[in-house]
């Protein structure tokens, strides 16, 4: 089958405007006859649910947390990009488009990325109108900063809590529609299946996490805004509850999964301290503006921050400054992460585990004074001290890369529709805009672009086409079948009563993924991983221990379902990494590198989006390829020497 991305014809800058005009509209009086399901209430979900309800559609929104405000978008720190050019420093829609497509290592669609850059400007207007307290200059206008090595200052921010403030803005819009009766909100409710009939998405099956009640919900369309799958690595900067279940179960109902091996590993996280570790904490990468990254020149097991103070300069290796003199400590995330791993693999890592490098502010404090450094990074230094018990003003920080974001996700066309009509994917849950590597401050932009400014147009076209009569009752056999299958899975999980906890399986999966499908990948390793994951899956379904019953709040049962899906996803990630024999963005294949050890892309063979089709349990998935066509940018190799 051929994947139709539905990118409109015409010049890049006119595609979206023309497309909007060509999309069918639903008569205002008829909008109330349609039901739309939105799963997830992060930036994409909350903004979509509110915007669709404002238009007049009836929306049912679902989140597994106790309130829609807790969705993990809340934890984003840095900022949100927009091509406002308020700073008069040469930014434009075209430049944001270009930076994003280049930063993604040319593995995203030109049409999608250009639209993202276009609507970015409206997002800022919308958020300000809602009362989002962005940082401001003394004159009262909005402040910007340069972020992640960008050459223009286009990032809007709200201290280190931009995600929180944007989400609370979307949450307030959602609340207004809940109060208006246009959104029915289901808190502590998890989606466990999509119902598909006659090739169209018809609704979902959910579990009430307090009572265990399994319920069917019918609608004209289903929007999955359920975030990424970084927790496949067990340790990541994602929230504990972040999971792939909604997207994965949609995949098993026919939705293609794209580029699953594209994951982003963030260089500045607080290192692991022991087996008890449950998650990793990110510290803003702005720290790399002033901190110098180094390890000792020779291996020194157990070398601590307090030892570092006495180590002479000539015994230190500032490896990023040495290898990349022009970018130094500010090389992109993937390059910084890989190099940290490399020096640790050489045995030169520091700290009790040897899996850390120093981020040293001694020179910055000497140069600018403690006060200046405190003003810039005070909250981050405090956070570091709180978690590690060490004072970064006196001893160098220790950092190590951690999984942070997943660029892969459900395949969607230009309308954000998956290949299953009526089933949409928004935000991090889809694969669409970041290619093989996401730029800093672009995740918030994409989530809100999809929810506020894309789906309200494109969904109307689908709904107008099918008509309001095209909706199934939950008595339809397809719903009954889905209910039975969900109940069957839950009963099976509860009946195994084996010897290992869900967390133990999750941790094992994470170790396999991190070792073989983490910062660098090679064919023999990936093959080992595939075998290990298959064994883990068999072991899980015969030996997992889930206590309690379905008819109560049962957090082990919740986790068990999610981990079973992560295991299956893990295998697909490995397949995808095996099939992509090039290095690009966050995906580094050791077989594809330059003589200097840098990533080497292969545009002749791999300038495509992978789209995997589920063929049944235990069957190999089928790879489809959507070829990427570049008409407006010239493909270049990234270099930071």
């Amino acid at each position, binding site marked *: 089958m051929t994947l139709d991305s539905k990118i409109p014809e015409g010049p890049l800058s006119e595609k979206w405007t023309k497309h909007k005009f060509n999309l069918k509209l639903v008569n205002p009086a008829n909008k109330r006859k349609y039901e739309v399901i939105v799963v997830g209430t992060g930036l994409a979900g909350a903004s979509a649910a509110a915007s669709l309800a404002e238009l007049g559609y009836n929306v049912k929104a679902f989140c597994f947390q106790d309130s829609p405000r807790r969705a993990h978008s809340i934890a984003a720190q840095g900022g949100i990009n927009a091509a406002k050019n308020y700073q008069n420093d040469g930014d434009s829609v075209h430049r944001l488009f270009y930076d994003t497509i280049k930063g993604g290592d040319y593995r995203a669609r030109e049409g999608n990325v250009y639209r993202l850059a276009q609507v970015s400007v409206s997002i800022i207007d919308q958020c300000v*109108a809602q009362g989002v307290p*962005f940082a401001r200059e003394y004159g009262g206008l909005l402040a910007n900063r340069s972020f992640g090595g960008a050459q223009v200052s286009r990032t809007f921010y709200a201290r280190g809590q931009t995600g929180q403030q944007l989400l609370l803005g979307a949450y307030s819009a959602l609340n207004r529609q809940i109060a208006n009766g246009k959104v029915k909100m289901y808190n502590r409710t998890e989606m466990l299946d999509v119902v598909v009939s006659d090739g169209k998405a018809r609704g979902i099956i959910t579990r009430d996490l307090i009572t265990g009640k399994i319920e069917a919900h019918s609608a004209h369309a289903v929007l999955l805004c359920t975030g990424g799958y970084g927790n496949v690595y067990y340790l990541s*900067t994602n929230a504990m509850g972040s999971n792939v279940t909604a997207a994965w179960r949609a995949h098993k109902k026919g939705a293609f999964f794209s580029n699953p091996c594209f994951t982003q590993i963030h260089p500045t996280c607080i290192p692991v301290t022991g087996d008890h570790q449950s998650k990793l904490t990110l510290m803003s990468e702005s720290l790399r503006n002033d901190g110098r990254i180094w390890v000792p020149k020779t291996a020194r097991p157990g070398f601590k921050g307090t030892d570092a103070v006495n180590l002479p300069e000539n015994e230190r290796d500032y490896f990023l400054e040495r290898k990349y003199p022009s970018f130094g400590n500010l090389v992109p995330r993937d390059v910084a992460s890989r190099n940290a791993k490399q020096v640790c693999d050489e045995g030169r890592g520091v700290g009790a585990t040897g899996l850390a490098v120093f981020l040293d502010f001694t020179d910055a404090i000497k140069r600018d004074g403690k006060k200046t450094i405190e003003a810039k990074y005070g909250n981050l230094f405090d956070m570091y001290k709180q978690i590690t018990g060490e004072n970064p003003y006196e001893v160098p920080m220790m950092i190590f890369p951690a999984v942070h974001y997943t660029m892969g996700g459900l395949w969607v066309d230009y309308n954000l529709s998956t290949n299953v009509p009526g089933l949409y994917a928004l935000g991090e849950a889809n694969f669409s805009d970041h290619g093989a590597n996401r730029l800093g401050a672009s995740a918030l932009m994409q989530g809100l672009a999809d929810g506020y400014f894309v789906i309200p147009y494109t969904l109307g076209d689908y709904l107008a086409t099918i008509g309001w009569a095209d909706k199934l009752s939950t008595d339809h056999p397809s719903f009954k079948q889905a209910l039975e299958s969900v109940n069957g899975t839950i009963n099976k999980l509860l009946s195994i009563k084996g010897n290992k906890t869900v967390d133990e399986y999750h941790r094992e999966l994470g170790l396999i993924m991190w070792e073989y499908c983490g910062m660098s990948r090679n064919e023999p390793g990936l093959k080992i991983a595939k075998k290990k994951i298959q064994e883990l899956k068999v072991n899980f379904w015969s030996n997992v221990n889930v206590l309690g019953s379905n008819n109560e*709040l049962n957090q082990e049962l919740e986790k068990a379902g999610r981990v079973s899906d992560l295991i299956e996803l893990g295998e697909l990630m490995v397949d995808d990494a095996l099939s992509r024999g090039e290095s690009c963005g966050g995906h580094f294949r050791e077989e594809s590198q330059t003589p200097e050890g840098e990533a080497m892309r292969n545009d002749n063979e791999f300038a495509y989006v992978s789209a995997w089709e589920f063929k049944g349990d235990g069957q190999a998935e089928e790879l489809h390829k959507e070829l990427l066509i570049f008409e407006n940018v010239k493909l270049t190799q990234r270099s930071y020497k």
Partner: protein
Amino acid sequence: MKITLKVWRQKNRDSKGAFKTYQVDHASPDMSFLEMIDVLNTDLIKKGEESIAFDHDCREGICGMCSMYINGHPHGPLQTTTCQLHMRSFKDGETITVEPWRAKAFPVVKDLVVDRSAFDRIQQAGGYVSVNTGGVPDANEIPIPKIVADEAFDAAACIGCGACVAACKNASAMLFVGAKVSQLALLPQGKPERKQRAERMVAQMDAEGFGSCTNTGACEAECPKGISVTNIARLNREYLGAMLTSYQVEVGGGE
């Protein structure tokens, strides 16, 4: 570290709860408090006992989901969220008491999990600016003095965890409501609806069964985000002004 834990166990909303005592023999000072509970839960499951239910999600102090009342303080001895509390804040051999938030408006769901949906309903009563998507002015057409924007931000930093309610002897939600009313009353975008917002949010707060504020300041002292009681003063002022000058609003009850 060896720790003795007295943990509130309660099967569901309708059953009676009680403290149960557990030993944790291998806690490390580097563990977060929640990771220590994770370790205990693994031990419990291995012994065939059901794990302790507790709310948590981001584990980096921003989502507001974690909510343990530890040794008589919401989120424990430090002014952080529970997830940002580490075992190094406790002594080896210490006995630690862990309870859920205690408030009539936050019924216990199970063990340490409470129902905070009352907070959502208060926000739905008026914690927003009534603008639809699209059709808004350019962001820089609304200049806001930095000092005002910063003050609004301080109020907006609330994470909605409910520690203020748990800390208050009256289980008052004034700090939570005051934070949102302040944020939007300070900003020009919130001014057109400021009167009805204050009235509606306070009416909903009362309907949910939160207690009155008697200015003890326990909420501010325990708030993990340092939200100031100034916001309560501003809420009182906004509310009084609204009651004296605005038209009547209908009062809706909770569920």
